[in-house]
């Protein structure tokens, strides 16, 4: 049996017999230029349909909104003033002085001694961050899937098999990040004046099926880099062995802290968190909520053993009570 919570190697947990290291992303938002190459490269590789309604979303340069059945990479744009930057810098510093619980620093330099002159543009900033499926160590979507459509790959990633999925939607509720979604019936809402232009667009594949990032499983089997990471112009999206990614991410945070950018912090690198750490770690420059990420994600099945234990106790208790009652009745 595999584990349902805590630190573990998810591939071994799923009983793959091989020695592929776990693969993952490291998205360094501090060097993201918000170009959205990842969004396009992803859609193009996976042939995901257009899903916007072709109107401004009202969210800075973000017209995608969120991850969904047809959007497996999403770039958020956040504009912030001086006050918020100071708060972020302070909250990041606090994480450090608390021993960086989310970071677990590798012999971090003594940051108290480092030059912590803040960077030059301090009065305004425009954060950009490319979000993606987290490929959790303990994946809620996978653990609740009743059909075996979702599976843990030999690379430690989580993938939907569209030929198996029956569209029941259980996984949608099982994801603590709100990533996985069923693809709608394919008719995207467009401004009325433009409807005629969409007549000859190809039929939308996999309607009704749960869809999300596969970490380009079909490319990994051929030793190719996922489409988004390959395209990324500034290497904001890095791809590699999960352990290396976490290591690189930690070094980068330490580096930024040494430059005075104490707002930098890691997201998803803590294997003791509610999902056992994630396969796609992030370097953020503010609280996760600012980017639309849950601060403390928790896989619903993490509590399953405890629930079963209690349920077992209850069952045993009830059985005992019933037995007692029965015996008592007989007595």
């Amino acid at each position, binding site marked *: 049996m595999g584990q349902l919570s805590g630190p573990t190697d998810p591939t071994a947990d799923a009983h793959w017999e091989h020695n592929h290291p776990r693969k993952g992303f490291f998205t360094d938002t501090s*060097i*993201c*230029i*918000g*170009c*959205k*190459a990842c*969004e*396009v490269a992803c*859609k*193009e590789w996976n042939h995901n*349909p*257009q*899903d*916007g*309604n*072709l*109107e*401004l979303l*009202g969210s*800075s*340069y973000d*017209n*995608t909104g969120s991850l969904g059945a047809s959007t497996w990479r999403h770039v958020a744009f956040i*504009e912030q*003033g001086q006050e918020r930057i100071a708060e972020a810098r302070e909250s990041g510093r606090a994480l450090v002085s608390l021993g960086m619980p989310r970071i677990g620093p590798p012999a971090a330099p003594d940051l108290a001694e480092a030059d912590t002159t803040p*960077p*030059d*543009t301090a009065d*305004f*900033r*425009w*954060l*950009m961050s490319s979000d993606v499926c987290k490929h959790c160590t303990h994946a809620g979507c996978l653990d609740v899937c009743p059909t075996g459509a979702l599976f843990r790959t030999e690379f430690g990633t989580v993938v939907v098999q569209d030929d198996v999925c029956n569209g029941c939607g259980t996984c949608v509720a099982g994801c603590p990040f709100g990533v996985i979604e069923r693809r709608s019936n394919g008719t995207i809402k467009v401004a009325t004046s*433009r409807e*005629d*232009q*969409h007549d000859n*667009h190809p039929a939308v594949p996999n309607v009704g099926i749960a869809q999300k990032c596969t970490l380009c499983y079909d490319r990994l089997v051929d030793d190719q880099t996922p489409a988004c990471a390959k395209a990324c*112009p*500034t*290497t904001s999206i890095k791809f590699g062995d999960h352990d290396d990614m976490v290591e690189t991410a930690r070094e980068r945070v330490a580096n930024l802290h040494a430059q005075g950018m104490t707002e930098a912090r890691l997201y998803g690198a803590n294997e003791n968190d509610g999902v056992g750490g994630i396969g796609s770690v992030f370097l953020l420059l503010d609280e996760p909520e600012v980017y639309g990420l849950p601060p403390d994600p928790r896989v619903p099945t993490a509590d399953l053993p405890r629930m079963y234990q209690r349920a077992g106790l209850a069952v045993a208790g009830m059985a005992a009570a019933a037995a007692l009652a029965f015996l008592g009745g007989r007595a």
Partner: protein
Amino acid sequence: MANADCIIIQGSNMAECHPVGYQWVAEAKARGAKVIHIDPRFTRTSAVSDKHIPIRAGSDVVLLGALINYVITNDLWFKEYVGAYTNAATLVHDDYRDAEDLGGLFSGFDPEKGAYDSSSWSYAEEEGGTIGEPSGPEHGADAGARAAGDLFGSGGPALEHAEVQRDDTLQDPRTVFQIVKRHYARYTPEMVENMCGIKAADFEYLARAITENSGRERTTCFAYAVGWTQHSLGAQFIRAAAILQLLLGNVGRPGSGIMALRGHASIQGSTDIPTLFNLLPGYLPMPSAGRHDTLQEYLDANASKQQKGFWADADAYTISLLKAWWGDAATAENNWAFDYLPRLTGAHGTYETVMSMLRDEVEGYFLLGQNPAVGSAHGRMQRLGMSHLKWLVVRDLNMIESATWWKDGPEIESGELRTEDIETEVFFLPAATHVEKAGSFTQTQRLLQWRHQAVAPPGECQSELQFFYELGQRIRAKLAGSDDDRDRPLLDLTWDYPTDEHGDPDPEAVLAEINGRHLDGPDAGKPLSTYTEMRADGSTSGGCWIYTGVYADGVNHAANRKPGREQGPAAPEWGWAWPANRRILYNRASADPSGKPWSERKKYIWWDEEQRRWVGDDVPDFPVDLAPGSKPDPALGGPAALSGDDPFIMQADGKGWLFAPKGLVDGPLPTHYEAQESPVANGLYPQQQSPARLVFPRKDNLSAPSAGTRGADVYPFVFTTYRLTEHHTAGGMSRWLPYLSELQPEMFCEVSPELAAERGLEPYGWATIISPRSAIEAKVLVTDRMRPLAVGGHTVHQIGLPYHWGVGNNAVVSGDAANDLLGVTLDPNVQIQESKVASCDIRPGRRPRGEELLALVAEYQARAGVTIETGNRAITDPEAEGIAPGPSGDASAGDGPQT
């Protein structure tokens, strides 16, 4: 750029418009380089820079001039470099008068022609003469008309000879150095604060960053794009940066220079092999009637055999081109068919052409992957111009607005045009994409890269190569047998390219012709290896001399593809860079006058005493065996006259020009003038706008009044146009793609919260933007990324307008076109329009439809009192013009700024 210690991005939004190129900036930054973005808007580039400095659009020369002043005043210039490699020590003639002396004008201005006679800007000659141009002076009005500034894409302007007078102490007031110093003395940090809206502290930060990262050990690099070129003095913006970079020794060295970030796949190639009215391939001029009536006149005007450097051999390049085009029909007897070339008689640029269309002088128009109905300034003029054509050929991938304006354009909606009345025949011919044809693109660093054909074009799609080859064949067939002299150039044209089974001509055969070949002697038929093999006696041919070598030894070097990771940083075996596969131009300057690297850290090309050769990481941009200390007699002329310390081998005197005695038609030194339309009065001179800018006073091209004149408050705001990462230019290659369209679906404008409050604009609601040309609507993005600037005591609001959308029914996304707001005013050096700054008003709500739209624009014009005179006078300071204001010379008729 990856080698720079400091990168200044100004006039460019590099991270958004060149994201993949930006990786090199990101890499430099990761290694500790400072990155500063100077731009009216806080963009995605600013977001990843060390610092963003907001600037008022169009005020860049004030800032750059102040940096020049800072460098000189604080004695921070690179003495050895400047003394040896620039023209700092050269004496300018006594007759020269600076803009400082004449209220913003240089000597030689002709108010009637609105242009300069530049002869007084010449270098001094022994015995009081001037070093002129080889074939006598050309009036600025004529040089401007043929956009003569374009000619200097590879070589500098011609001089009679290079026997200049020098004062190496730089003390003589006539030295270039002293002139530059005087010219910029009033460009101070206070002036920057007042004119650019940049705080003194920010200026200090910038000046320190640049100067601390320049010198022997360190280099600073500038990057610009059309944020600099699209101004009425755009060429001078770039010149100003060049002066600064030369003073700091930041030219010809690793991590130095001024990087032009060009916006289209082969736009560099399309000026090298120019589909431009005023150029022949390799930056040779198209001949002009009256100036180049004979071959001899033409060759004399191009270059003197007495000037230094390789441009002195322009005769060989010209005759090789004529041989490439007309083969055996080009003989010594007929002057190599020089008279087969048509002649210019003035400006025939794209904007003049559109005005000719409106006068019914143009019958036929080819649009080849270009969408002027959306992408050119003054979209309405473009579309109305096309409605006067007899026939229009549009070749594109998608049904762009320039193909459908007769059906669904804005003028159909406004009632100005009726489809049933439009006589124009329109042919839409589908084009091939980049993977459906083979050929070479020249990218922004002059690198030619071959594209192999992947698949055949679908349906009736064709490459331009095939279409024009076929069109030429048909025209020639139809004219065959004609004894009309005018048809000789077409019938004698070399036009026999091998074709494949689809009738597609072999692009490598065309490349081979461009490269050139030996025509007689033992090597007859063999490709030329380098342009120095070209001869003026008809024994060589070559279609573009600067590309000679790309097909050396019969090998297509543009297709060289040795992986980058298997080569050094210059990667010479990937593609082929002109000239001679050289990656950094003028790289002789990377070594000191004695030939040693300036520093170990910035080592690139140096003199190897043992081998007696220049060696290093690149192809030396210098005669390879010319020792550093050589001092040949300048009278020798040509490459033989170059000294060992003349790194600028394409300049007529071998030096980098701080002061340009020739070549610019609007002044020898960059000087700040306000834009054609500006809410700010020029704080430096009484002269408001560039006196030599090209204006088009027409009823359909009205300008907003400038600061201080009546009606200026009707169009109180500045707007600037730009691109987004998610789209490409006028949208022909992006608005038809669902994946790109959904990322930026609608036209919007960017405004500051302050302006939104002042005008009652709702976030993500609609706004109408009105200029003297048109009114458009856009969704409103209220953002702190737009900052009001305090300029000259009042607040200047700037509005950002991306220009990708157009009105039509065929694209996935459409919307009003920002370029409809623009008028046509051109830089006189290169005839590029001023589209990065103009005046407008903004108000909430959608624009009116139909005739009411025209009424709205007219109502604004009336309220502002604009006439065709407004903003169009060359000299705006009546005193300078020497004319007392007449009874009508008050504010209502004139438009001079209050001083």
